[in-house]
């Protein structure tokens, strides 16, 4: 079989469809990071004293830390003094009471992204807490949720209205001392989502947030906290996309999930941040800390992610399986094209007895991209009868990209069962020719084959997200062959 690298090369160039900037006046703090900036953020958000102190403590700790260099990614050093750490849309001043009062430009932005908030939210029965830059501008379906006692809204609102819950759980999964970016986030986070599902409640709808980076040169530091109380159930969707930008933008979010006895959290992400242009210029740096604490017995957390965006991704949604019989799952599709770099995977820390974890990771690399899976499966001494299954597959498109796997396995209990399977394959020219001979265009054929490769992950996504994810892969691979 003859391979034809040039053919693959030309598919690897395509335009970023969500690249546009909405013209909205922003209220932005001058660039730079110091205690005064943190006090200013806290004051602007009218936060209680304890939260300000928490931020300052995180900042002091952050100053002692070094930026991590162990991920398999390369980028020029980030100048943390060059970013602005707060930016709120002006329309916040007149605080929209309903969607009608929302700046139409904002809504237009969502429309362009194919997220008709009004119709989509209603039709799909999804409550949308839309984060535009750093402040929530619209929240829907509040009533339906509050009827059953579910608290869902912006993090700022939660700080104001439910400080006791925030105080109780904030930083208990990802402490301020956890890592460089988590410490930074704790110091300067501006907003995010908060969700609390009370005992025994099955959340009546899928919860979803669309993140979006808009104001120029503004680092984004989202903070998400989801608490599932005993016997509750929630499915949370997060999707993001960003406008085209030249300078690199830093994004360092922290997501904390707490699952108490017999509860279940399903957290799904479709991430499509600006990856930089075909020469690797621009693009988002996405350094995220996502972790779930399966604190209660029989609790379960599933992470499902489809990652197609960002210039650099550094992300390991993890589960601490503390409760007996608790279950952690990680289903991931990470696609990198052009000069994108991704170092992503998961950590499954088995502490409790009979804890189980499943890891299915699908990495796709095209163009000159580098895609690494990094995973830790740790079975501690007390994790009697624990089990893990890991499957790690890589697909290469063209011959200038790379796939890497770094699995770490630590087993301290003899009764544990750990399985690891890994494979690396190339999109086969025979497969492409077969499809094309049947009349299917080369691009459609690539999409079909890639989607087939990702099937095990896509079936874990909520229906509407699965469709979106397939579209996203198609858009992200446009021009990757041909």
């Amino acid at each position: 079989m003859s391979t034809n690298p040039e053919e693959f090369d030309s598919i690897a160039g395509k335009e970023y469809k969500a690249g546009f900037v909405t013209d909205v006046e922003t209220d932005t703090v001058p660039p730079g990071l110091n205690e005064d900036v943190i006090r200013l953020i806290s004051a602007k958000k009218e936060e209680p004293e304890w939260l300000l102190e928490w931020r300052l403590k995180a900042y002091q700790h952050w100053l002692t830390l070094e930026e991590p260099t162990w991920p398999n990614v390369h980028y020029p050093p980030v100048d943390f003094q060059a970013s602005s750490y707060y930016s709120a849309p002006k329309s916040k001043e007149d605080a929209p009471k309903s969607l009608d009062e929302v700046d139409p430009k904002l809504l237009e932005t969502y429309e362009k992204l194919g997220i008709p908030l009004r119709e989509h939210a209603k039709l799909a029965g999804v409550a949308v807490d839309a984060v535009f830059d750093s402040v929530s501008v619209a929240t829907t379906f509040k009533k339906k949720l509050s009827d059953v006692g579910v608290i869902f809204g912006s993090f700022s609102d939660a700080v104001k209205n439910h400080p006791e819950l925030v105080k109780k759980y904030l930083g208990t999964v990802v402490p301020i001392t956890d890592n460089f970016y988590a410490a930074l986030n704790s110091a300067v986070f501006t907003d995010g989502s908060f969700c609390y599902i009370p005992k025994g409640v099955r959340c009546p709808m899928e919860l979803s947030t669309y993140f979006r980076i808009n104001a120029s040169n503004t680092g984004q530091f989202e903070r998400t906290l989801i608490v599932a109380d005993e016997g509750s159930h929630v499915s949370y969707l997060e999707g993001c996309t960003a406008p085209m930008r030249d300078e690199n933008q830093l994004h360092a979010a922290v997501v904390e999930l707490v699952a108490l006895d017999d509860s279940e959290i399903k957290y799904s992400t479709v991430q499509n941040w600006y990856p930089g242009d075909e020469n690797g210029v621009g693009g988002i740096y996405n350094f995220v800390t996502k972790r779930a604490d399966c604190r209660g017995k029989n609790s379960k957390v599933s992470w499902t992610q489809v990652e197609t965006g960002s210039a650099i991704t550094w992300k390991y949604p993890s589960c601490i399986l503390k409760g007996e019989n608790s279950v952690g799952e990680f289903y991931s599709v990470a696609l990198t094209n052009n000069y994108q770099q991704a170092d992503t995977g998961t950590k499954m820390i088995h502490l409790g007895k009979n804890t189980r974890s499943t890891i299915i990771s699908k990495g796709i690399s095209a163009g000159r991209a580098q895609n690494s899976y990094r995973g830790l499966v740790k079975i501690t001494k007390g994790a009697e009868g624990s089990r893990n299954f890991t499957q790690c597959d890589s697909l290469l498109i063209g011959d200038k990209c790379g796939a890497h796997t770094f699995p770490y396995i630590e087993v301290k209990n003899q009764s544990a069962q750990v399985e690891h399977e890994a494979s690396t394959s190339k999109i086969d020219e025979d497969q492409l020719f077969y499809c094309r001979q049947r009349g299917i265009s080369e691009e459609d054929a690539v999409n079909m084959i890639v989607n087939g490769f990702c099937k095990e992950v896509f079936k874990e996504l909520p229906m509407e997200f699965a469709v979106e994810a397939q579209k996203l892969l198609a858009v992200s691979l446009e021009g990757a062959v041909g």
Partner: protein
Amino acid sequence: MLNISNLHVKVEDKEILKGINLKVNAGEVHAIMGPNGSGKSTLSHVLSGRSGYEVTEGTVDFLDNNLLELSPEERAHLGVFLAFQYPVEIPGVNNAYMLKAALNAIRTYRGEEELDAMDFMAFVKDKVKLVQLKEDLLSRSVNEGFSGGEKKRNEIFQMAVLEPKLAILDETDSGLDIDALKIVADGVNALRSPERSMVMITHYQRLLDYIEPDFVHVLVDGKIIKSGDKKLALELEKRGYDWVREEAA
């Protein structure tokens, strides 16, 4: 329908086809026989547009189109179908889904409306029976875990659905036991029509017992050195290829 004239093809600087001339009219079935390495599969690949082959001379006309200028999918849209010698497996891609995408691409080219999932399933229902394909193979991944016979039946099933004008059957008989061969041959025979031409590439005469060709050509060392009718195939079966070579020399 198909007119191949003085076709010369190189693979990595080695000339494989050295001046093929072949004319196939609508409704005709041509068998191309020849020993290993004579260029039979190269011919089927060049006609269907596979990359890796360099045409150095000659022309291929298909329904007044210069076939060699077209991409594989454009050739498929015009009605060229290749039943693969080794159908590939595509993990995770649903067999029916792929075929529906193919059919709709062809229908779009013809200016017909695309079929939705329901209409498509109704459309293929009878075609499945034609080659006695188990219906559950439709919802499995393309060719994945299919037996050799199932893969070949799946090829003929796809041909029945896509309704090509020119079907090239590349060693469709290889790897089939006698029962499977009969089923596949029955399927192919059912698809014979005055508007559809077929080019069958085969090593053995036995396929021709079931699918009777109108013409038989002997391809040796990149050239068609003898043509005849069905009787020629029988003679080849009896006497091998050497006598044709000698006769041609």
